[in-house]
């Protein structure tokens, strides 16, 4: 019981500190927020001239951050590879094997 109370106290204290941190955040969508720096300004003003793509998201994903997307596709490749290695069962092995699994 005391242990549970102690855990509750710790959780509440952490939440209190976290809420203080959240209260310090700038209001959402204000034009003078720190997120609206020169990087997003460059993207908004120069994406069409510099990449020729009308969709700004594609311009960022496939041109400005092309390296990121490249390794994202490698992550996809690794995921598919891991699934195939884990789940692929050889048919011949299942029929003629010694039968470690009783399926």
């Amino acid at each position, binding site marked *: 019981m005391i242990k549970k109370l102690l855990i509750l106290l710790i959780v509440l204290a952490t939440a209190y500190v976290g809420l203080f941190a959240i209260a310090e955040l700038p209001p959402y969508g204000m034009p003078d927020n720190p997120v609206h720096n020169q990087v997003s300004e460059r993207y908004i003003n120069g994406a*069409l001239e*510099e*990449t*020729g*793509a*009308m*969709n700004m*998201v*594609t*311009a960022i*994903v*496939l*041109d400005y951050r*092309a*390296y990121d*997307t*490249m390794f994202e*596709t*490698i992550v*996809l*490749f690794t*995921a*598919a590879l891991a*699934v*195939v290695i884990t*789940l*692929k*069962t050889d048919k011949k092995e299942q029929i003629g094997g010694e039968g470690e699994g009783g399926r």
Partner: protein
Amino acid sequence: MRDFILKRVAAMILPFVCVYGFYVIFHGHISAGGSFAGGIIVGLSYIAFSTIYGIEKGRAKMPEKVLTWTESFGTLWYGIMGMVGIFKGAPFLANKLAGVDLGLPGALFSGGIIFYIGLGVGIRVASTMITIFFSLMEDES
């Protein structure tokens, strides 16, 4: 699932779903969407087909050889497209710096290598989805 109505409705809808997925991939640099979303749609059309008609017919529509090829060469295609920049004397994956013709904004073949990279990524995502689904389905049966 061997439902008659489901099969007929799927036969009518799924081709358009697949074509729409390729539309989203090809128009990723013009309109909303992109290669990842389009690839998911293309993959989902095949996944729905093999769920409704059975894994055997789904396998017949998408042979394992094709899956292996797209799976292996999708990422390599990205690298090859990146080498265009190096051959033109610019950094890896450079687009405008490499002097690629960007074309008229809004046209289908605009944006330099973005179009080709997006095509590779879309096919890649679709093949990944189908491969994972087929592996999971086969283990179950």
